[in-house]
């Protein structure tokens, strides 16, 4: 299922536009959304998960137009979202948390146990199903979040900074989990960690100045540095290309 933005505009009250005619199509598979702080990544994700209303342009989840109530309502059943910061409640076990999430995403109560089992297996947490969430490590909590977003088997999964704040070992585990999720769904990962994108994503989009300044594959982005004079000798080719791209957007009048 594709996520399609056509001429998408968005601005908060009395402030400049955060998104300015953004046009982008996110295809099935794992796609990375990169961009500097304040570029509008979180705003774009909030629009995609219907937390914010679409006011200008079009935004579609598959065929569902998010500017209509019906479209929003139908799209919500197709979406899974792991926010950058989320909490778990100590009253529930891991399995109860995921089952509860499956229910709030629209599954029938009787299906939630089995859905939780499947989701926990997919993030390799089935062994901790009966643990209280307060006893989990940061990486385990992150995977519980992913399992909660997966429990209703969404066709579009949005992850906002999924490895932020994790130590290297936990980050690795989360990456391993996420890597397997794009086989049969559209996964969009917003991150400022180029390393995450490099390891997980088959395609990337770079958001800067309210627009997608680049969309394509790594080789296509890396190819940009060949024609960029004065590019730094430090960092990977991808990082150098990305930095130059952002700098170029910043130099615009």
């Amino acid at each position: 299922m594709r996520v399609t933005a056509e001429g998408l505009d968005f601005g908060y009250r009395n402030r400049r536009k955060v998104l300015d005619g953004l046009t982008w199509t996110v295809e099935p598979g794992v796609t990375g959304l990169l961009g500097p702080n304040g570029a509008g990544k979180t705003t774009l994700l909030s629009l995609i998960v219907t937390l914010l209303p679409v006011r200008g342009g079009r935004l579609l989840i598959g065929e569902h137009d998010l500017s209509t109530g019906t479209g929003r309502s139908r799209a919500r059943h197709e979406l899974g979202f792991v926010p950058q910061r989320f909490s778990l409640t100590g009253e529930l076990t891991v399995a109860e948390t995921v089952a509860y999430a499956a229910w709030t995403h629209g599954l029938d109560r009787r299906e939630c146990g089995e859905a939780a089992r499947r989701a926990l297996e997919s993030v390799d947490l089935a062994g901790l199903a009966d643990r209280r969430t307060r006893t989990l490590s940061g990486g385990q909590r992150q995977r519980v979040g992913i399992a909660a977003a997966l429990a209703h088997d969404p066709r579009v999964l949005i992850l906002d900074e999924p490895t932020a704040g994790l130590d290297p070992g936990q980050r690795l585990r989360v990456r391993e989990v996420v890597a397997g999720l794009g086989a049969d769904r559209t996964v969009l990962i917003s991150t400022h960690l180029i390393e995450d994108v490099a390891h997980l994503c088959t395609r990337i989009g770079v958001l800067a100045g309210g627009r997608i300044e680049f969309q394509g594959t790594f080789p296509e982005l890396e190819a940009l540095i060949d024609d960029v004079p004065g590019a730094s000798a430090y960092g990977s080719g991808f990082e150098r290309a990305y930095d130059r791209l952002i700098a170029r957007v910043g130099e615009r009048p």
Partner: protein
Amino acid sequence: MSPLRNRAPRSEAAQGTSSRNTSVRSRLTTSPLFWPLPPPLVLVPAGIVLLMTLTATWGQLSWRALDWVYLSGQVGVQARLPVVVAAGAAALAAARLTRPSLVFAQSWQPRLGRDVPLRHVTVVIGWCLSAYLVGLLPLTAAVASQGAGTPNPVPVLGALTGFAALTLLGYLCGVALRGLIAVPVAIGLVFVCTSLPLVADAWTALSLQLPFTPSLGMRESVPLGLYRLGFFLLLATAAAWTSVWLLRAPRRWSAPHVTAVVAVATAAVLPHLHAFPLVTYAPVGSEVCAEREGVRYCVHEGHADELALIVELAAPVFAAYGSSEAAPAQVRDHSLATGDDEVLHGTGHGVLWTRVHPGWDPYQEVPQASAGWLVPDLLVCGSEGVAGTGGEATPQERRAAVLVGLQTWLASRSFPGSPGAGPFAEAAPDEVRDWIGRNEDRLARCEVEPEELPWRP
């Protein structure tokens, strides 16, 4: 491709049990009785509600003259504190399970905008209200065994709707505040709501109970009951709607929602502009009568079991006074009254109205009322109700003491062998009867001094 991708993940099964694939199913509670709340979140408050209700009604199980009208009112009265617990539980459920930071409580999730709050409150209300009704069962059984009167459905419906509405109000506190602070706020708010009728009658239309509980022969005013029922329905609707509105994204006011909120505010003001009558007389049912020594005793058929005792206790008092003209023509059960005038002017028609009510103590109330009928009111003495024979007592107070002594002595005649107390304690019944016959007019004018009593040493 990163070499990290090829690294096999270390299974968390090493930290779990060996039966990892079945553990999710084995422990997960998806019973419709609790879902989606953790069972302790409803079982604990429901248990408290049950205990509170049983404790509060236990003493009434042995009461005399229980009737269905009284029980109908008690459904609201006894709910006063249990509903505070239910509201606190609802606030806790909302505060713990609808915080927007929770991974399963994001406002865009399809069920959050309606199903989640409705399911939460359904489970909390279902458990707490059921516990409350179960707690009322023993009292209901006690009333059923006496079987007087008929249930009054309007106050019962109003009380149960109020229970649900105030629990919803607690849930709204939890949704609005999204933190544990919501629990004491909800408890305080609902406690205040249930206590308002104790402050002023006008609040009765907005609360669970009357300032007093009507019993057989009376009933809660129908306009008041219907108004209260309507108010609680409105409150429940507005609270549910507002909870849903707070949880939904994006938030949009709807005309029906605004109308419901405005209607609740308006409905809360109206009773202060137009006072409802609290109770009305409803003497449904026939009377059962007996006659002794010229006095006719009548009670409501629902109080037929009390009639013999009333006669047994009142007749000796009238007999001890001696003058048959002084005794009332009738002693009537208040449950037979048809209006205030009839009761207020009872003396003029020779009728002593006695209130037979649930929990009454006929051994105390009948002799006192009967003696009170025979002895003039202390106000005639001009002592402002004060009676005494001590050194500092005024002459009016000393004369009032004679009337008080006489009333006490007469009331004690219901219990053969009782020596009585006060200035008439040592007197022989025949001697007192003769003395009353000679001094009836002076007694009526409160002119008798304690020193005049012939049996005083």
